[in-house]
């Protein structure tokens, strides 16, 4: 079924000399739609969270000057909160935001996401600038721990379920209407 993404490799660059991580990927959708999947919390909650955790978005004001906060929760109740502010949200083009993990509030990183129009397709590039090389390396290591166990199970579920099913069955969007 969903085979159109084949050949779209996620590119990662971790500069040895600078505390940055660059992630780039192409999507088979125009910038407007990709941008919406990044900014609409109902859509974001369906893809951003790690495989084995429930994602809850407390607030997601995707506009210049807005803020966001979301929580990843493990089955045993352990919660990992993340928050930041949107420095600039330029529709269909660019999002600049801060990012910090509640457990390490001093490690604030700056994330710039660009949506590049490839004519019906979109290339998304996110550059994260961390506070230090150590913080960047810790980020890469945390990715390794999670990635090692997650595999592609969630993807299989998504692809296996039809569009009528709710692929984000483990997700919630609490507190958005309050």
């Amino acid at each position, binding site marked *: 079924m*969903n085979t159109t993404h084949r050949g779209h490799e*996620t590119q990662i660059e971790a500069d040895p000399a600078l505390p940055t991580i660059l992630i780039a990927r192409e999507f088979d959708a125009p910038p407007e739609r990709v941008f919406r999947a990044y900014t609409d919390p109902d859509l974001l909650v*369906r893809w951003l969270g790690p495989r084995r955790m429930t994602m809850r978005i407390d607030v997601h004001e995707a506009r210049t000057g807005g803020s966001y906060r979301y929580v990843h929760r493990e089955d045993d109740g352990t919660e990992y909160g993340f928050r930041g502010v949107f420095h600039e949200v330029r529709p269909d083009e660019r999002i600049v935001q801060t990012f910090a993990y509640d457990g390490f509030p001093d490690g604030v990183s700056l994330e710039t996401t660009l949506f590049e129009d490839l004519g019906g397709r979109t290339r998304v590039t996110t550059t994260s600038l961390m506070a230090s090389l150590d913080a960047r390396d810790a980020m*890469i290591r945390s*990715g390794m721990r999670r990635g090692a166990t997650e595999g592609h199970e969630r993807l299989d579920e998504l692809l296996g379920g039809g569009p009528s099913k709710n692929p984000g069955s483990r997700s919630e969007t609490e507190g958005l209407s309050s």
Partner: protein
Amino acid sequence: MPDDRLSRMFSALADPTRRDIVARLATGDATVNELAEPYDVTVQAVSKHIRVLEDAGLVSRSRDAQRRPCHLEGEVFDLMTRWIERYRREAEDRFRRLDAVLEQMADQPGEATPGKKAAS
């Protein structure tokens, strides 16, 4: 692999001269004198760089041979590559879920105004 190991490797590689030395060793073993030749620095300075690379586990030197050539530890680089590859795979996992979301969005035109809920 201890947690600080990757940090040591990254900071060892943060220096341009050391990166250059590593690039040269990637083509084959070389002595400190040979490595020092292209640079406008003393053999002692290059020796110091080699020691940092040794401490980070990136380079080794044979004990017995008179020339004591420097050798690049390829397996260590494989480890680094693996750290980053795992991170990449996690991002890929996330982006494939986004692929599916984007596809479903295409099937459901006439959606709500973007950003409407974000303002609440």
